[in-house]
């Protein structure tokens, strides 16, 4: 059945093109060759201006980027910093903090280690003898914080240690906060306070970028923190209109043609253009569908990568781009664990129990059920199905007049056996414990929950209350009409 496929050596030119194209899709080409999408142009300019002001002109700035997930906040910042580091390599250091990984406490250590590391790189790997000034990240937390503050506050960075340094200018420290809202929590906000304070008062130029997804980020900030913040909030632009979206998709798909030796680029770009703007092409429909539902470039890109990588040569790339079958099957694959797909993958008995569950839930006032009730419903249902099934059939044979006894009844499984089915429905998430809190938001909450013995675990198996994830109406739409249990999908 599975004949080994012959692996053909790839045309090396095409291989290079494919690699180039993949890198373009992942935006991992060298910074000179990547271009942010044009709809981001103004934001890009803004960030560029801010960064240049603080790196070149040594001003202090703070601003917050607000935008939903996947709106290229980090990408833009990284791109801009990569561009600037080519030109002004010695002028700045970057410190990255992530609200998920750093807490208020560990962020201080995080800053110190990165500061130390970056300064070491900047000063050309020279191991300066350990003294109090260079060894920032050692010591207790308060010491470290003191040191950082002193360092940043008093411009000791390039001044005192590097007397032989010809440049007398200060080094800009660029802070990038991801998930800034986690630092702007309910208590104290010390870190943000100190950093924003630095923007106002320190002699070291500090540039702070906070990235967040919360539109009301200013309401998170305390009064004293807010007053130190420059009030500059950059809202990430959204793609407006389908025309703009499709143009952006074209940008995403078309690598810059400036590259030499890649003779496919031109032909590819025109192919992409033709296909995208032809309203009847599969690609156009796919993009339209994405625009109407997700409106997400990343989602589209994920689907395009198997398409691009799966091509053996340029012809097949062209063909598969025209049909888009790979992207379609990627999108289809994402739905194969949806509730509808799960219901279709159930065995007869499992489906039957699920229907019984939905029936008992619908009957109950509090929309919950337990194993006992479901089994009683199941018993009743099978009995009433079996009552309607004829068990006798006249023989076609004329000589023999005794009717043939047919055993085409539905098997009524024992309560003990149904328990297995019940548990597999549980593990497939068709049932959830009544008023259960599934995943806790933070590690602390998960810890508290693990120390608490819930009532549901102490009571007997068949008395536990469950809620159903599918309603009977929902089941009726998914269960095929040909199914024996279809009539039971309504009360």
């Amino acid at each position: 059945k599975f004949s080994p496929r012959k692996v053909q050596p790839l045309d090396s030119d095409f291989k290079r093109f494919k690699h180039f194209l993949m890198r373009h899709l992942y935006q991992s080409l060298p910074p000179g060759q990547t271009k942010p999408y044009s709809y981001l142009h103004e934001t890009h300019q803004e960030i560029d201006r801010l960064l240049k002001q603080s790196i070149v002109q040594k001003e202090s700035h703070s601003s917050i980027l607000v935008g939903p997930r996947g709106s290229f906040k980090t990408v833009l910042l990284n791109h801009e910093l990569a561009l600037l580091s080519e030109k002004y390599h010695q002028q700045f250091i970057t410190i990255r903090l992530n609200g998920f990984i750093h807490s208020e406490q560990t962020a201080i250590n995080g800053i110190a280690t990165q500061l130390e590391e970056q300064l070491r790189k900047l000063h050309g790997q020279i191991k300066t003898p350990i003294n109090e000034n260079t060894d920032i990240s050692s010591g207790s937390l308060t010491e470290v914080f003191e040191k950082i503050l002193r360092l940043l506050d008093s411009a000791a960075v390039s001044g005192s240690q590097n007397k032989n340094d010809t440049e007398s200018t200060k080094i800009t420290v660029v802070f990038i906060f991801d998930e800034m809202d986690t630092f702007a929590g309910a208590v104290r906000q010390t870190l943000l306070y100190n950093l924003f304070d630095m923007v106002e008062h320190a002699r070291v130029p500090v540039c702070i970028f906070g990235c967040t997804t919360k539109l009301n980020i200013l309401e998170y900030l305390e009064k004293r923190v807010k007053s130190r913040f420059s009030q500059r909030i950059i809202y990430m632009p959204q793609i407006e209109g389908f025309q703009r979206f499709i143009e952006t998709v074209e940008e995403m798909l078309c690598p810059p043609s400036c590259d030499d030796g890649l003779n496919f680029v031109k032909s590819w770009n025109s192919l992409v253009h033709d296909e995208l703007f032809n309203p009847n092409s599969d690609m156009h429909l796919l993009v339209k569908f994405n625009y109407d539902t997700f409106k997400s470039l990343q989602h589209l890109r994920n689907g395009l990568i198997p398409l691009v990588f799966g091509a053996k040569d340029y012809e097949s790339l062209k063909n598969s781009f025209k049909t888009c079958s790979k992207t379609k099957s990627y999108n289809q694959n994402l739905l194969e664990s949806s509730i509808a797909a799960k219901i279709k993958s159930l065995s007869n008995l499992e489906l039957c129990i699920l229907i019984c569950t939905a029936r008992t839930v619908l009957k109950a006032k509090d929309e919950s059920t337990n194993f006992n009730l479901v089994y009683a419903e199941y018993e009743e249902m099978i009995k009433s199905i079996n009552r309607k099934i004829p068990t006798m059939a006249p023989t076609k044979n004329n000589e023999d007049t005794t009717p043939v006894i047919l055993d085409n009844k539905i098997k009524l499984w024992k309560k003990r056996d149904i328990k297995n089915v019940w548990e597999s429905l549980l593990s497939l998430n068709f049932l959830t414990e009544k008023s259960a809190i599934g995943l806790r938001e933070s590690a602390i909450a998960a810890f508290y929950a693990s120390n608490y013995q819930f009532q549901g675990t102490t009571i007997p198996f068949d008395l536990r209350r469950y809620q159903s994830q599918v309603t009977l109406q929902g089941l009726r739409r998914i269960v095929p009409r040909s199914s024996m249990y279809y009539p039971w999908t309504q009360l």
Partner: protein
Amino acid sequence: MSEINDLVLFRDYQIETLSSFLHADPKITPPNLVIQGYSSTGKTHTLQQFFAVNHFLINVWLEPIELVTWKPFMQAVARIIQNKLKSIFHNVKAPDYDPLDVEEPYLLVKFLNNLFENYQSLLQDPICIFLVCDGFDSLQDLDAALFHKFISLHELISVDLKIQLRIIYTIQDMAFIERYSSLCLPLVVFPRYTMDQIVDILIFTRAQELVESEILREKVLQGQIDECSDDEFLSVAINFIKLIVQAFHSYTGNNISTLNDLIDFKWENYVNKINRQNIFDPLGLYRSAIAIFLTTDDSLNADFPENSQPKSENEATQTYELSPISKYLLIAAYICSYLEPRYDSSVFSRKSHVKTGRVSYGRRKKMEINPRYLQPSIFSVERLLAVFQAIFPIDTKAQRGSLASLKEDSLMRANVEVFQNLAELHSLKLLATTVGKNIDFLNYKVKWKVNVPWEIVSEVSKSVNFDVGQYFTGEG
């Protein structure tokens, strides 16, 4: 690609998609890749085969289920990556970092940064190291923030490093992934197998093993079935697998491991039924081995009712070896939990009335739902003792009308033993109270309820010849 399709069935799309996402070159590999599939959909197997075929991809495996909380998890990440790099580049003199120092998420970042930096001069081109978190959502103390920590690790590790970490997560629960859907991580779904696919997979994985099993060999030698070729043995095994799936598919669903268990349980019995006549006659063999396809026998207790077993022996084995007082207490508790207190007097009252007064009428109408299906309701301990006294049999030793009978109680009193048994029932978790922690039994606020299902109570009552069913017939 071609090799792996021979080893993994029905996962062509998944393999192809995996191979388009996973490369040695970090520039064209996404930092995070999610693989979703419910249990026994071949996630781990496919991924293992994928890395076995593409052996040039550096990969390390972790099973979060063994690591329980996030801290050991992160330490294991640090340890396993360091060990792997050491074993691959053993000529590099790299300082050892202690993975146990990783006590915070940011220390993991620091650890990895330091670690990768040691290999900076060694490599020409950047390469990927793949960390497979096999069953990320099976970590016991999982919380919603942990996955965010892992997927943003790559943003904090320097991009200039020659070794780049790429993480692959296998996750069972789709609801977990849907929490993070706005991050648009590349996702490969492993759907559940269909019944036909399962038959093929089981034949592919098990048939040969069954043919070579010791039991079959012995049976063949004993029965002197010498006119069989290996092909025929194989068809016996394949036939058995098909029969098992047909018989038990609705019971197991599309779960390969459960079916595998059933194959293991029943193969021996099946082989025992083989003889010279029926080895070539699948239908005959099925008929002679019909018993094993009718019940699942999926229980470790030997006492479930079977036709072959004599009835008397069955009754002798009781579910619990409790004292008679405990048994009656349990029955009384069950009655208290499931009968309403307002009908108690009509059910239990037997005294002839000295004073005048009406007796309770009892329930007028049948209840709609059998209350035994629902959770037990709570009662006070006094009610339990009253019902206990009403149902506990006491045989009077003294003669009727004698002086001794005046001294003797006709009813059971709540003596020390009763309370001892009551406390023991509670510590055996057969009775439960309303509050769990630091419970004060002497407090009047404490209410009780029974914590055993109907099946056990009816068995217990049978063992003391008490018909508990009669109290519930009017309502069922």
